């Protein structure tokens, strides 16, 4: 399960005891401010070096030959023509020494290898070429002659389970066991309900489509491998390479640095990285492998498509009596978490004593799914939050009020039903409704004429987002008062570096422009888990704070000796150390002799453990206003508001950016995006380009996008009081739009994307029904 990477259960040894945790901030001067990115200039000016920009002396460029069929067996590969082409330095195939690398692990062991002749999806790797230029590499790829035996394929989850369906793996087409969950007694719950509604919903497969496609540069320094990688986590890439290439950890250095988005698709090592490393070894030259957009559509992850049947019971007074969900999903041709966490919102978002879920994950001949911004949650919310709307209508209750009635204080799906460390769900709904003008907007709904207007609400949570150990951060304070922040975490473009620097600045009073950041390099920065699961801020910021405090402690001790006072009476303020007892006793940082003598102070900070018996979980509520053109099926989202509880808002600007990104991605899920496979003929993806795969544009998002941080400081969670934001910010967006569409035109939209193709059909059908 890809989600495993998100949750760390065993607390590692360096984790300090809870008693050693610093006291919470009462007021802050830097944290919480609206500040631009510390690396904004580099990113905008082009000075930032992304993996795709790395150029090394003597470097070769690689390209990958991929299977053009949904399902095929490679019978013969003839590289003789390609080998003789100008500029070609090496060709790597299944037969090459060292290429026998096992791949795609299931419980039973690896299901495949680097260049498995049995290609189970379009885009599966068949060979790699390194040449002097990218063009020569691609010319050579085109010149490799491959004889394929094309096999029958399965392009749909339902087809995969039909008797006689082609078996993608020896064991058949089921990916793992059926996942089951139950609490209470759903039958009794439905019997006790005044209203029972059942509906089938589905979400299309989405592609991550980060701006920067996957890229790696590999170089061998003797027996040591150095890899530049566009990744969310340098340490997971390092451990992946160590395992696959059978090298000691000390011999693999992974450098992350700037990267242009990942959304979950860059959490673990990919085949292209290993191909680059092997080609670099063969040629004894550095090799760059930068995937094309087409390749990134096929082979490096997606959000699995899910079909969800949801049945719900409710009493007239708004009490939920039962929820029952069955899910069929597919993570592609290899275990990809096709249904992972899809039922979590059903289990945990609302108070309900009787819940039963059953999730079936199957293989199809398509690229493997990977964690995608809140795995499973947007799919589950698409179903649950439309269902909540349907129930509210049936019992004649306002949808906000109905949700408020069912806000839980405990995590019902976690064993022992522990309380949440904080829950802002109620506040998100109330504050969001107030700021959106929910009641008035509902009254303003236009249900006559060709252009209808309506509003919708949806809520959500993200089961991760608490973060936790391990995390180690080092802060160095130089004698001139400038500082160095050293952390292993990646900054996906979300603002991680900015937020961590703000924490250091808060504690040490060093201005942001005097903080130099070293990050995401296994050779020079400390261990960090991947930046995923919305856990980077709650994981790393307490460690950054602890490191800064360690520095401060040492600095005050040095200053105390110099000023002949006790360290306890000293405070650090505006670059000066001042006695609280006698303000004439003070010294600037640059004047601390011991620091000058030593050159710098090194502070080390660790992430403390999470509280026992508490569940840390971010929440959110989204409100959408739409106009539906009933003549054309066009939907225009005219207004959107997101109220998020992610604990303390560490930087209002990055908070807003993350949330607006989440909204936009949710609008993509709701309205425009979906992988389309040529289901009945070839199984190939027909819309693998920017034009046919429709990411929302500036014209598809409302000008008015309001983000409301519900600034609840969660000091039970950690010492900076923040919870995760990136993922919860996208969970409720799509169903809020669907509910608004229903409110506007009375048509329920159970399947994504709700584009004019789909909505026009639904509107025409509803007109016919009268």
């Amino acid at each position, binding site marked *: 399960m890809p989600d495993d990477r998100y949750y760390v259960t065993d607390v590692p040894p360096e984790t300090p005891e809870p008693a050693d945790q610093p006291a919470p901030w009462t007021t802050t001067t830097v944290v919480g401010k609206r500040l631009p990115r510390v690396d904004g200039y580099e990113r905008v000016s082009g000075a930032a070096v992304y993996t795709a920009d790395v150029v090394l002396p003597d470097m070769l460029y690689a*390209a990958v030959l991929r299977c053009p069929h949904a399902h095929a067996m490679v019978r013969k590969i003839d590289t003789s023509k390609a080998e003789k082409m100008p500029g070609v330095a090496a060709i790597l195939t299944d037969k090459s020494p060292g290429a026998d690398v096992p791949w795609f692990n299931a419980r039973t062991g690896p299901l495949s290898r680097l260049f498995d002749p049995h290609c189970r999806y379009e885009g599966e790797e068949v060979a790699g070429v390194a040449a002097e230029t990218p063009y020569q590499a691609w010319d050579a790829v085109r010149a490799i002659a491959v004889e394929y035996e094309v096999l029958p394929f399965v392009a749909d989850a339902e087809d995969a389970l039909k008797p006689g369906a082609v078996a993608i793996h020896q064991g058949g087409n089921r990916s793992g066991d059926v996942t089951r969950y139950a609490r209470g007694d759903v039958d009794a719950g439905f019997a006790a309900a005044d209203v029972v509604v059942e509906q089938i919903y589905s979400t299309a497969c989405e592609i991550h489509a980060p701006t920067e496609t996957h890229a790696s540069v590999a170089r061998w320094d003797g027996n040591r491998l150095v890899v530049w990688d566009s990744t969310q986590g340098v340490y997971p890439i390092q451990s992946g390479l160590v395992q696959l290439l059978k090298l000691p950890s000390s011999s693999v250095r992974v450098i992350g640095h700037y990267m242009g988005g990942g959304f979950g698709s860059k959490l673990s090592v990919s085949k292209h990285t290993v191909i680059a490393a092997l080609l670099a070894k063969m040629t004894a030259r550095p090799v760059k492998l930068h995937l094309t957009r087409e390749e990134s559509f096929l082979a490096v992850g997606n959000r699995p498509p899910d079909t969800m049947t949801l049945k719900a019971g409710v009493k007239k007074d708004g009490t939920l009596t039962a929820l029952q969900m069955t899910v069929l999903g597919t993570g592609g041709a290899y275990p990809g978490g096709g249904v992972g966490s899809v039922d979590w919102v059903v289990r945990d978002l609302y108070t309900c004593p009787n819940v039963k879920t059953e999730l079936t994950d199957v293989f199809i001949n398509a690229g493997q799914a990977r964690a995608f911004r809140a795995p499973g949650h947007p799919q589950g919310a698409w179903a649950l939050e439309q269902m909540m709307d349907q129930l509210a209508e049936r019992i004649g209750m306002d949808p906000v009020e109905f949700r408020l009635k069912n806000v839980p204080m405990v995590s019902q799906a976690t064993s022992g039903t522990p309380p949440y460390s904080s829950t802002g769900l109620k506040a998100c709904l109330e504050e969001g409704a107030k700021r959106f003008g929910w009641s008035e907007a509902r009254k303003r709904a236009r249900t006559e004429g060709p252009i209808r207007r309506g509003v919708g609400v949806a809520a959500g949570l993200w089961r991760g987002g608490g973060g936790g150990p391990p995390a180690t951060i080092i802060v160095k304070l130089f004698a001139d008062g400038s500082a160095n922040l050293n952390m292993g975490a990646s900054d996906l473009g979300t603002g991680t570096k900015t937020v961590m620097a703000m924490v250091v600045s808060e504690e040490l009073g060093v201005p942001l422009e005097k903080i130099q950041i070293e990050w995401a390099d296994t050779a020079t920065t400390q261990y960090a888990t991947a930046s995923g699961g919305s856990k980077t801020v709650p994981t790393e910021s307490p460690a950054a704070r602890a490191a800064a405090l360690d520095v401060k402690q040492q600095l005050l001790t040095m200053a105390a000796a110099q000023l002949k006072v006790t360290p306890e009476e000293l405070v650090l303020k505006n670059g000066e150390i001042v006695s609280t007892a006698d303000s004439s006793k003070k010294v600037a940082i640059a004047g601390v002799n011991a620091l000058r003598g030593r050159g710098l102070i090194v502070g080390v900070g660790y992430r403390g453990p999470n509280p026992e018996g508490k569940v840390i979980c971010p929440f959110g509520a989204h409100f959408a206003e739409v106009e539906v053109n009933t*003549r054309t099926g066009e939907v225009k989202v005219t207004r959107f508001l997101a109220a998020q509880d992610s604990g303390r808002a560490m930087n209002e600007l990055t908070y807003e950016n993350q949330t607006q990104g989440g909204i936009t991605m949710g609008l993509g899920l709701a309205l425009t995006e979906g992988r389309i496979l040529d289901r009945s003929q*070839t199984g190939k993806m*027909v819309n693998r380009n920017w034009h*046919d795969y429709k990411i929302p544009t500036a014209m598809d998002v409302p000008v008015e996008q309001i983000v409301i941080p519900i600034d609840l400081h969660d000091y039970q969670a950690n010492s900076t009081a923040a919870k995760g934001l990136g993922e919860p910010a996208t969970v409720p967006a799509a169903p809020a739009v669907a509910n608004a569409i229903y409110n506007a035109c009375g048509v329920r939209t159970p399947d994504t994307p709700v584009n*004019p193709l789909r909505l*026009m059909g639904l509107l025409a059908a509803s007109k016919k029904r009268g």
Partner: protein
Amino acid sequence: MVPGFTYVRAKSVADGVRQLAAPGAKLHAGGTDLLGCLRDGVFKADRLISVSGLKELRGIAPVPAGGLRIGALTTHAQVVADKTINERYRALAQASAAVASPQLRNQGTIGGNLCQRPRCWYFRGDFHCLRKGGDHCYAEGGENQYHAVFGGHKCYIVHPSDTAPALIALGARVRIAGPGASRVVPLASFFVGPAKMITKETILEKREILTEILLPAAEPDLRSSYRKVRARGSFDFALAGIALALLIKDGKVARARVVFSGVAPVPWRSEPVEQAITGKALTPDVVAAAAEAGVKGAEPLEKNGYKVPLLEGIITESLLALA
């Protein structure tokens, strides 16, 4: 990655025509469509003959006898910014503004827009379909949600251009230079459907260059519009569109030209709609009847049935807007 090619600049239209005789030569204007086709392997080109430097092919100017000449290399952005076009030929201004995205409108030319290749995803993908010289159409029994409901015949592309229907509605003609004397043809007969020819969309021969678009003088009572529905707000082709050019006199439609986009392999002139409104005031009843007439005879494939009510919807909306 785009396979290698030789790039040469034509010194004049005549030089371009000469150079196009080379084997594997293709004309290059803004390159926005051409380079995509080469990258996707839709067709091959060994040699690109670029006319992008020829100033005489750029610009918008009035014709002494009345009307307007638009050079083939005029960009969409230039068309959108032109005062006369905005005032007198609104359908064209609206159509050009609805093309693609700002970057593409700055680079793409109106001539290239008329000559661009279709967007059928099988055609653009690595499927050796009928239009590429293969032996069958993948769309007919496959993923045909974006395909034609009118005029399909063995191949079911929709013509991708937004400007073509607007120009046809406005009565445009085009001048074509070739090895002999140049010829001028009505734009409506510039396009050919699959029943006549499957591997090409226009009458252009290999060594021909479209040099200019000629618009007739706009009558004072001319009202025109272009409306396009797409699956995404920008950077997207028409699911269905409609260009109207109506001469309205004394509250009645004296002459009508109605052309659909996004529903047929060529810009689709709808005589049924024209007949349903000519001589009449655009009352709700007349418009409803016209919308119904407009979709009569539509033959949807398995997945594009939505185009029928959609087309009905935009016929209604657009006619009422001009009433």
